[in-house]
């Protein structure tokens, strides 16, 4: 009995010690404040001499366009080396600002959800319609905006939901969204539907559910909604664009936490915005003939 009590005390004491231990110190990165820290020769790159850019596989229209190639194979896929598409063109524009030629750019495929998880990265920066959230910014560095996004509702033509003209009218329907996306958050906060939001691992699964009639509406960012409604679906339509919740959503490029390149990428984006290149790229690659109505 005494032995048992003593043993319990020992274990309890150890457990208390574990819970009570204070946080460890984090080493602050040594920052260079040299004025030309963003000069090409001063950049800390994953592979010296080349710029390694990451994106997801598949790489979808309208963000990446043109033929398939390298690891980006299969229908609906596009080779980032093409330099075609909204994100593709933006990435090469940033690369050019940083002083890299097209031959010096290498692409790697990284799954979306892994890009902003904490830890070392195998890319210098990453872009794949990653929306800025404070939680994602904890694990990785997120650049300034290169696209201010809006969410849109995709549905099948001729269905009841396609006739909705206000956010309130959207409430009674069943929605789907990809898990872990800001689209999911927006669906819950802006539409706040009566039934629970269905979640899917991939957008393709969600799209299939929409085609099957298992969900009434699918919430995705506007460019993806445009692609789905006009290319992937034969009978698709955009019900409308949702009002942005407090604080506009935007796409950010992802870099390793504390990366010295983040400031350089932000500088490049600022330059591209100032001289109108970003607007041009958006016009050319996201030029939507049909405007989807803004819902209130």
């Amino acid at each position, binding site marked *: 009995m005494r*032995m*048992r009590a003593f043993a319990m005390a020992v*274990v309890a004491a150890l457990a208390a010690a574990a819970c009570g*231990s204070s946080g460890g110190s984090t080493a602050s990165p040594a920052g260079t404040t040299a004025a030309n820290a963003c000069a090409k020769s001063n950049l800390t790159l994953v592979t010296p001499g080349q710029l390694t850019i990451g994106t997801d596989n598949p790489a979808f229209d309208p963000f990446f366009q043109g033929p398939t190639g390298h690891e980006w194979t299969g229908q609906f896929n596009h080779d980032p080396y093409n330099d075609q598409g909204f994100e593709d063109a933006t990435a090469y524009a940033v690369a050019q600002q940083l002083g890299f030629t097209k031959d010096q750019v290498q692409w790697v495929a990284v799954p979306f959800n892994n890009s902003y998880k904490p830890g070392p990265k195998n890319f210098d920066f990453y872009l794949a319609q990653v929306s800025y959230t404070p939680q994602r910014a904890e694990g990785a560095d997120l650049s300034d905006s290169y696209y201010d996004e809006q969410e849109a509702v995709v549905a099948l033509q001729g269905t009841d939901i396609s006739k909705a003209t206000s956010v309130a009218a959207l409430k009674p329907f069943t929605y789907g969204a990809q*898990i*872990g996306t800001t689209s999911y958050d927006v669906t819950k906060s802006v539409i706040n539907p009566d039934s629970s939001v269905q979640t*899917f691992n991939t957008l393709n699964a969600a799209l*299939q559910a929409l085609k099957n009639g298992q969900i009434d509406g699918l919430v995705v960012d506007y460019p993806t909604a445009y692609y789905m409604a006009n290319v992937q679906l034969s009978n698709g339509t955009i019900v409308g664009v949702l009002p942005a919740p407090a604080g506009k959503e935007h796409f950010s490029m992802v870099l390793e936490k504390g990366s010295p390149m983040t400031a350089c990428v932000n500088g490049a984006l600022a330059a591209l915005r100032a001289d109108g290149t970003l607007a041009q790229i958006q016009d050319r690659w996201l030029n939507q003939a049909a405007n989807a109505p803004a819902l209130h």
Partner: protein
Amino acid sequence: MATALASTVVVLTVLVVIAVTSPGWDEFRAKFLDGDLFWTSLPEIARAFRLNVKIFSISEVLILILALGIAVLRSLPGPVFFPIRLLAIIYTDVFRGIPTILVVYMLALGIPALLLSDANWYRSAVVWSIVALTLVYSAYVAEVYRAGIQSVHPSQEAAARSLGLSRWQALRFVVLPQAVRRVIPPLLNDFIGLQKDTALVAIAGPVEAFRQAQIAESANFNFTPYLCASLLFLLLTIPLARFTDWLIERDRRRFLASGGS
């Protein structure tokens, strides 16, 4: 007794010390053992867990029935029944071979894609997940039943037949009761597996406990919600396991009490 206790304490102490003194302990504790997040995410995960329980309860009943049918079909003797035995063999091979997640994908997203009906049940991912789980687990459980049936000594059936019982009566009143009693532990194995596989319904849309934990994880960038979901699954499994132990023990006592016959 004292030695067992002492060695348990030593092992536990060593494990705790290794964990606590590891360089990443603080990060681990913050990301996996966050107390506040545990309690705030628990209610929604518990609510989502009801879907797991619902799927599990319905599937379990269907599996027990379907699997028994398949096992009996597979045990039919004589060359005239060969096609039926073959079908049963193909069934168990196919549904044990294909990963369960694929079967759920193909049924829950595939069958509604045929657009055969507008009915709500036809489009329901939950309905087709139950069908998928039933098909897959019946294949496993049928083999368990078959092992049980074959373990009953043939003299039992011979004795029953000689008493004038037909094949089916012998099967129903003599062989099956003994067979089923023998295979309760492996049956429970499969059902515990079934409980966890109910999480697969999430790939086709419905939000169950694991998916709800995943939503909380990506919203908070923290893995503690998975701990909540795990504990809920354990809450279901452990009583079931202890109940089955009790069943087996009761059966054993009766067996011994009646002279081991």
